[in-house]
Structures are given as C-alpha cells and as structure tokens.
C-alpha cells in the first residue's frame, strides 16, 4: 500500500458558539478517491478549510508526505500541491479560459511580457485530459461557458498547477445526469494519473460509483471509517446515526389537511413552464430538484419577486397576480430566503428589529416604531420567547446569534403577519444539527395552525423527512409528485430525468 500524501491527525476546531471538529483524523493516498461524507454541518467543509489553510486548527497536525506542514494561507497549500474545487467557483467570468487557468502564474516570454501563445498551448494540453476539451476554446471567456464546463475549467486549473491532492466539494450539485457521468470519468482519469482525490458528497450513488475508501463525519467527529467500499446502508446509518422518527416532526394526518390555500394552474415565465401546484392548509409540501431546476424561481414567482407572466394563481380561492413582494405579503404569503445573510437578515440591527421588520414595513412611515397594527414590541418579545431564541437580549445585534436562532427570528417576522402560505427556502442550511429539529417542529406547528407550507430544500433526507408531499422539479417544470415516504433514489431519478417515474 502506498504512503498517504496527506495525514491529518487529531484535528479540533471551535467557532464562537459551535464546536465544529473534535479529534478528527483523516488521510488520503495517491491514486485513490477518499469519500468524505456527512450531513450538512457535520464538519466536512471546516476540515477542508483547515487542510487548505483558510482556517487554523485549534489542535492537531497536518502532514504532507510525512512532514508536518502549517498552511497559513490558501496560497501555501496550493503551492504544496493541494487544490480545492469549491462549490462557488473561484473563476473570473470576464477573463478567458487560458487567463483563468494561469491566474497568478502566467508564463513570461520576451521582455517579461505574458507569453500568450504558450499559455494557450499549455491550456489546450491540460484540457486534452478531459472529455469536454472539444467544447472549450482557450480564448473564450469563462462566463460564456455553462456551469458543468466551468467546473471542468476549475478542475483543469487544479491539474495545471500540478496538484497532487484535489478536493471536490459536492461537485455534482449543479450538474445533470450526463454531466455527472462526464465528471466521474474525469475523476477516474485523475485517479489513474496518481492524484489523490478527496470527494465530498452525500449522494450514495456517486460514492458507490467512485470511492475507494469512505470516511463519515457526524457532528464534528469521525462516525465511521471504511477501508473497503461498504454497502450504502452502512454509510447512511453512520451518517444519520439517530432515530429519524424523532428528528422530524410526524407528518400531517388526514384530518389536519384542509382546503387548498394556494392553487397554481398552467403558470410560467421565462424560467418556469406549465406549473400546476396545490398547497393545502395544514400541509407541508416539499420541493426537490437539482440546482437550476427552477425551485427558487417558482418561489420567487409566487412571491412576486420575479412574477409569472401567464397562468392562474389563486390564494384562498381568490385569483391573485402579485407583481412585487409587497403585494404578495399583503395577500398573505411569507418567504424565508435561502441565503440568510445576504437575503434574510439586516445584520447590524437588533434581534427585535429583525423580527419586526415586515410588520413595520406595512405600517405608516411616520408611525411609531414600537407598535403597529400587526404587532408591538411586547408581543414580538413574547413570540421570540415562545420560539426559545437564545440571546442575551433582544436588543443585541442579530449577527451575534447562531444560525438556528437567526432563522427563528426570521420566522417570528412572518408569524406576526399571520400568512396563509409560508415558503421556506433551504430552511436549515448552515444550521446546527440540534437546531434543525427545532426548525422542523416549528414548521409543523405552523401547518397545524392552518397555514400552507412550501419547503424548498437541496437536502433530500430533509425533504423526505419533513414534507407531507414531495414535488420534484426539472427544467422549470414539475416533473413528478411523491407522497410522504418516497425514497432518495426515486426522487433523484425524477430530478435528473433519468427515468420517468410516475407518482
């Protein structure tokens, strides 16, 4: 057996409020694919950021080729031959493929000028390793390429730096089936060339297809380590490691589900087509699909942010056509955005101000801030108490709170408006495992009080566990519908359009 390229031993790391990793050991050898799996928030990204020098471990050592290394900056790790392909690409969309590949290390020719000919030639050489080479012109701007091809460029960039270790962080998140297969072939090529690959994913199919070894992280600790590829069930058991029944709130009973709150018929816009959708009172509808399938576009259309251009929508039986979020909110729709920091919170304002934001937005500008017709400060404090938000004071700036508590404050914002339909986008993204259960139960309580709930999530176990009904979107259309209890492969197939699965 070959010696490991990378050995990480006893790595621990804490952030204010969260212990992200404790005593994690991990290694990867040349020419193998080591899968790193775990739920969101299990500590995978933190481990990788320590490896690449973005974070510094509180304790533990990192060895490369047997020698201890201390990376203080991503540049250090890159120079040592570790390349990380992040989910958000670090490519410059306005620059050409060749310019991106050689960013920061352009070959120089005469007079110290950039040797563009050589740059172009070497770009072609590197790209030749990949099946997508034919589709890529070195002089094309990266922005003009589709997401899958951009990813190839990103990987090619890693290869061209001579990386011996390549980390791929959920590389298939935005890819369709054919593109996934092409990526797998790329990974195979890299493996044959002796590159060590750390492959982060929680999709069993990819892991069984690619991995040589599997390490499972759970709540910041090693939950299991498999030196041979184990059966998928064993991985899932190690990953979840708890009673699912308790984690998610129980599904709605027949009696709890009432009349339709929202109906959509034949609606569409430039990103959506032929949308038929019902959400009934008391029901949580899960919306699954790969990135770019149109789930967020559907939410934003319902919320009036990027409205439908045709089709019919009724809310509580009355036809509506919301053109702005304000109209939608007035009509009784609430929306919890997917990116809390950039779309949900006003970070420098207090917890209470965040909770009262929407109710104040619908009160007269010159009216007193303490009290409006939807709520007042005392009632808001009561609501925040009821949701067990942990804060020293509600006058504290919200940025000091943990993700789960921040999310609850946004829920409180909507509760004071008593919406008929609440849309949750990625409700537990970046939230502690323990806090997740709280959010699921909160959603269920809202449904029981008679609201309809539409939940968009990229976390399949979450959609399966929390929703009463699951809709799967693909290419801007609703491709399939499943009752509570559908399985992950069923949904994945419908989402990637591999086979037509009837509901």
């Amino acid at each position, binding site marked *: 057996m070959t010696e490991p390229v990378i050995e990480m031993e006893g790595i621990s790391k804490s952030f204010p409020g969260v212990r992200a990793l404790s005593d994690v050991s991990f290694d990867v050898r040349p020419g193998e694919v080591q899968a790193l799996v775990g739920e969101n928030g299990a500590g995978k990204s933190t481990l990788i950021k320590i490896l690449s020098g973005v974070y510094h471990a509180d304790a533990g050592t990192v060895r490369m080729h047997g020698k201890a290394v201390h990376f203080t900056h991503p540049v250090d790790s*890159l120079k040592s031959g570790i390349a990380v392909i992040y989910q958000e690409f670090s490519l410059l969309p306005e620059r050409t493929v060749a310019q991106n590949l050689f*960013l920061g290390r352009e070959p120089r020719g005469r007079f*110290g000028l*950039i040797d563009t000919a050589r740059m172009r030639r070497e770009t072609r050489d590197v790209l030749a390793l990949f099946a997508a080479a034919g589709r890529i012109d070195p002089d094309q701007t990266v922005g003009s390429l589709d997401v899958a091809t951009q990813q190839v460029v990103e990987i090619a960039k890693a290869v061209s730096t001579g990386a011996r270790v390549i980390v791929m962080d959920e590389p298939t998140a935005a890819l369709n089936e054919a593109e996934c297969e092409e990526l797998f072939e790329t990974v195979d090529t890299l493996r044959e060339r002796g590159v060590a690959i750390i492959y982060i994913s929680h999709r069993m199919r990819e892991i069984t297809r690619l991995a040589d070894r599997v390490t499972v992280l759970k709540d910041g600790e090693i939950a299991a380590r498999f030196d041979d590829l184990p059966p998928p069930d064993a991985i899932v058991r190690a990953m979840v490691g708890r009673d699912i029944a308790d984690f998610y709130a129980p599904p709605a009973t027949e009696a709890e589900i009432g009349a339709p709150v929202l109906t959509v018929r034949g609606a569409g816009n430039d990103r959506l087509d032929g949308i038929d959708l019902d959400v009934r009172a008391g029901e949580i509808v899960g919306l699954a699909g790969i990135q770019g399938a149109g789930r967020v576009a559907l939410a934003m259309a319902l919320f009036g942010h990027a409205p439908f251009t045709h089709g019919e929508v009724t809310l509580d039986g009355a036809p509506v056509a919301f053109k702005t979020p304000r109209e939608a909110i007035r009509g009784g729709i609430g929306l919890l955005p997917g990116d809390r920091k950039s779309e949900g919170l006003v970070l420098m304002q207090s917890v209470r101000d965040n909770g009262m934001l929407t109710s104040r937005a619908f009160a007269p500008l010159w009216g007193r801030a303490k009290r409006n017709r939807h709520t007042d400060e005392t009632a808001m404090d009561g609501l925040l108490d009821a949701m067990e938000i942990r804060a020293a004071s509600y006058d504290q700036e919200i940025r000091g709170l943990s993700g789960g508590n921040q999310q609850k404050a946004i829920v409180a914002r909507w509760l004071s408006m008593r919406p008929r339909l609440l849309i949750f986008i990625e409700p537990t993204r970046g939230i502690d495992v323990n806090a997740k259960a709280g959010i699921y139960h909160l959603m269920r309580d809202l449904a029981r009080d008679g609201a309809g709930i539409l939940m968009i999530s990229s976390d399949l176990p979450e959609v399966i566990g929390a929703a009463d009904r699951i809709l799967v979107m693909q290419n801007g259309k609703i491709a399939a519908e499943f009752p509570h209890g559908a399985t992950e492969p069923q949904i994945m197939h419908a989402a990637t359009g591999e086979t037509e699965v009837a509901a």
Partner: protein
Amino acid sequence: MVIAVATNQTQYLSLENLIAILGRSIALGITAIGQTFVILVASIDLSVASLISATSVLASVIMDGAPAMIVPAVLACLLLGAFVGVLNGLIVSALKVNPLIATLGMSLIIQGCLSAFVSNFAGSVPEAFQIFAYGQIGGVPVALVFLVLLALLAWGILRFTKFGSDIYAAGGNDEAARFAGIKTGRIVVLTHVICSVCAAIAGLYLASRLRSGAPWIGADGVYDLESIAVVVIGGTVLAGGRGGIWGTMAGMLIFSLIDSAFNIAGVDSFAKQVLRGIIIVAAVAFYAIRSKRIVA
C-alpha cells in the same frame, strides 16, 4: 449628435476641426486613462481634479519661464503624482477606507495645501514647454500623439503583462485573486499611482496650454467626475474587473463631440455646466439601468 453637428455646419467635420476638438479633450483623456486603471480594480479616484491644479501650479512655479527648469519641474510633478497615488492606494488598501471618501479627503487636503500658497495664476511656462500643448508633428498636435502613445502603452500593460492580468483579477474577484497568490493590496496601490501620475501629466499639459498654472483649473474642468463618466461610458464597470482603454478613448471622443456641439450652438458657459451635470448622470444611468444590482 454627429448628425446634428454635420447638418448645422457641413464643413465642420474636417480633419482640422477634429483635431481641434481633440485638443480640448487631451487633459480629460489623459486623466481618464489613469482613472480606468483604478476603476478596473474596483476603486475610484476623486482627487484627480485638485491634483491637476496642484501639478499645473507646481510646474509653472518651478519653471518660472526658465527652459532649464523644465526637466526638474516635470520630474517634481511626476513625483508629486506618485506620492499622492501611494497615499491614496495605502489609505484604500491598508486602512480600508472607502475609496470615494479616501480620495475626496485627499482632494480636500491637496486643494487646501495649494490654496495656502497660491490664489491666482502663478509662475509661467517657457516657450519650449508650450510645445507639449501647441507643437505639431507633421500637422498632428504633439499632445494628440502623446495621448495615443499613452493609450497604447496602457493597453499594452493591461493586455500583455502579468500586472495587467492581476488588475483584472483583483477587480473581478479579490478573494479568488488572493487565493491565486496575487498581492491585491499592492495592485491597488500601483493602480492609484498610475492614476495620480496620469493626473499629474494632465496638469503639466494644462500648464503648457494655459502658459501658466492656476489653482482652479482642475476643479473648473470637473476632471474628477468627467473622467469617471468617460470611463463608465467606455464600458468599464464601476464594480471592477471589466473594461479597457479603447472604450475609455471612445467615451472621451463622445464627450468632446458633445462639448464642441455646445460651442457651435453657442450655449453659454453656465448653461453648459447645467447640461454637463445632466449628461454625466444620464450617461452613467444609460449603463447602470441595465444592472439588477441595488445601488445606493
């Protein structure tokens, strides 16, 4: 605009007149080339107008009519430009001060220092130095040749050097650039030096053209705002990372055409200022309105 001008005065678009239009825009063009660099790294420079005033005065005071002092005067101006550029760049990149505020503050400081010493035309420029503004090479003004050469040089830097590539990277995605090992702070400082040196050259040109320096010529020409408007019209985005020199040159041409149209139409100078303000806002709006980004 071109059509309107052409119909009003058919003789207007002769080569001679074209050169005359350009002559008025040389200072703006030189300044805008520098401004292009800072805007490409997502910074901005509002201190160019007072720096132009300062260098024009410095040049004409040092020369004071003596041809022998031309070289020291030019060197002093370029040094002053580089110094201001380094300061601007460090305040922006090391102290993390918003570039608008940093350079506005710098503008106050320069103007204050300048006003402390002079309040009127100061010094004089010797005949030999007036060649910069009035000389001709084979019928083409020296200054125009200089502007074209400067633009070519700037284009070459942006297109063919690692520094140019780093500029686009730092402006396009600062984090990605730093992950690739580019010292983006240094890039920001260097672009500010280029910008301020260009402003210093524009100051020298104006001193040569007016035959003397004055502490108000920069502010009078609104070179800070106009150079930004010219760059934006040329397709360089204020958020950085996209654009280039030839767009800026085209923007400068558009501005000079508008200016000369005003002159032909006989618009008085105050009304011209009003129209100028409106045109700058309209020009930026023309590009900004398409972006989805919320601005404030």
